[in-house]
């Protein structure tokens, strides 16, 4: 297994370089870039990551992730602002509550697939939005303002570096954890269920239980994004989780690629850059993002990450050289082997 080890070492080294470069962002770029673009992209990436995790490994395209983000954000904000609770304790409680709600959501959707799952999770996301926009306990339409994070974060608006590094650290941990989980019995079985739930049942797996627990994992990731996002914004309002935001997260995940987990962060970065810099050039940001989405869906249904992977594969296999076998069973998971159409089955 020499070549596989070699490849794994190269990938690990490349990953370390990327993380180190990202950690230097506050030192190199302006305060504005760090706060408005880098931090925001990482939070959106984390939120989209919860969607991509469910889609890539579970075959479940969920539109409830924005709602779960909101549950964590609102519950934590309420604990901090109204109850004066310690921010970290409030965050942990909010994450726990969100995971419980995620289990409930998972139990509801675990019997559905494809378009039905998409519609049920959309309904759950919209219900969550209406709940928070109409219940006064959570500030109603106004939301909750003045949510301060733990002391070491300081003021995220004037000094975005500390919270940026925290968000980066959380993103790296979540990414690594998902990659690890993919090769455990739980993760492999989840991919099996994605490929053929009927077969997995016949092999003795409890498909609904497995999907429900996967949904809870997705809820955990979305909750983490909700906590960090609310700390970063120092506020949360129903507008944060309305339908346009649900669709925006879906667009981010699709732009990055629904079949590779890193696609979530790639899509979030591309989206945030476009969102920020095209606004100065054109008032038609929505039109441009729509055109870009269309172009990506036509040219590369598995998003930018899929495009990048094919380009890298082409570079590796220059003409005249035999194509090396992909080490599918040697410790590197291969969600790219999943054809785009499979998720929609």
């Amino acid at each position, binding site marked *: 297994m020499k070549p596989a080890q070699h490849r794994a070492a190269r990938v690990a080294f490349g990953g370390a370089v990327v993380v180190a470069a990202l950690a230097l962002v506050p030192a190199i770029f302006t305060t504005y870039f760090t706060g408005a673009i880098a931090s925001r992209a990482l939070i959106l990436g984390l939120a989209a990551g919860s969607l991509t995790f469910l889609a890539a490994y579970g075959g479940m395209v969920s539109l409830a992730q924005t709602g779960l983000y909101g549950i964590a954000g609102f519950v934590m904000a309420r604990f901090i602002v109204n109850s004066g609770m310690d921010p970290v304790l409030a965050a942990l409680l909010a994450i726990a509550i969100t995971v419980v709600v995620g289990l409930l959501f998972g139990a509801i959707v675990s019997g559905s697939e494809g378009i039905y799952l998409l519609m049920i999770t959309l309904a759950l996301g919209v219900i969550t939005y209406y709940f928070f926009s109409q219940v006064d306990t959570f500030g109603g339409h106004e939301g909750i303002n003045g949510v301060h994070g733990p002391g070491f974060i300081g003021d995220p608006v004037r000094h975005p570096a500390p919270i940026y590094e925290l968000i980066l650290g959380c993103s790296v941990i979540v990414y690594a954890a998902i990659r690890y989980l993919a090769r455990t019995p*739980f993760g492999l079985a989840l991919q099996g269920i994605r490929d053929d739930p009927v077969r997995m049942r*016949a092999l003795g797996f409890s498909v609904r239980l497995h999907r429900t*627990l996967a949904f809870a994992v997705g809820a955990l990731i979305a909750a983490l994004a909700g906590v960090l996002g609310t700390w970063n914004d120092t506020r949360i309002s129903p507008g944060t989780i309305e339908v346009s935001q649900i669709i925006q997260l879906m667009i981010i995940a699709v732009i990055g690629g629904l079949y590779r987990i890193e696609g979530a962060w790639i899509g979030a970065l591309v989206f945030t850059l476009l969102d920020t810099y095209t606004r100065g050039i054109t008032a038609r940001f929505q039109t441009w993002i729509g055109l870009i989405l269309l172009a990506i869906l036509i040219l590369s249904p598995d998003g930018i990450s899929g495009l990048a992977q094919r380009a890298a594969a082409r570079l590796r296999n220059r003409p005249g050289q035999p194509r090396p076998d992909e080490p599918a069973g040697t410790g590197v998971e291969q969600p790219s082997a*999943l054809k785009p159409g499979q998720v929609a089955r």
Partner: protein
Amino acid sequence: MTATATAAPLLRARGLSRYFGAVPAVHNVDFEVVPGERRAILGPNGAGKSTFFNLIAGDIAPSEGRVELFGRDVTAMAVSRRARLGLGRTYQTSRVLGGLAVEDNLYLAVLGARGGHLRPVRGGSADLCRRQAREVAERVGLAERLTVVAGSLSHGEQRQLEIGLALAPSPRLLMLDEPAAGLSRAERVVLTKMLLELDRDVTLILIEHDMDVALTVAQRVTMLHQGETLLEGTPQEIRASQLVHDLYLGSGHGAR
């Protein structure tokens, strides 16, 4: 208990029926298989063979009747629980886990019977399970294809993996739905040999259109026609039956 257990049937279906609308796909079938038996189920297309399989494995619920497996009533039991009791099956069209490597497919099949499906950490019994998975790959002739993604295997290889998925959990009852369908003559010979070499403890029920494979492997044959048991007998009796010839052999056998 042991004395009665050996005599008791491993699988018993009583008055099993399944209607799709008003149409009976399977109608009032009584069926018994003793431990270690090799049984073939024959019948023309639409005779209800696959529906009968799905009723026994639990993929569909019966309209009437009961299913007893390994001495317990499993009529209301979920598919996954019947599988964990020791029922392994293949499907008429291959159901392999297309996005995963061959080894991962077989690893999950081993894991399915062993439990620990929800473990979120690596290690543990993984090495043992993977060794078992590779042994199964060897048995079904996929030892060289372990790292290939199952979705990119050829049709014949997917049929081999399909049987591997049923064998890997070491089931007590193995149910194969047309394992020879779409295989070349040479592949059928390999398949027949593999079925004949099966552990004698394993009970086998086989749906097969290929009479050579079915009548070589089976000790007893059940003939289904329009959802009902037409006759049951040894392969010799089936070969000699004029009824079977008229219904089944006359139309398709030899043409392929």
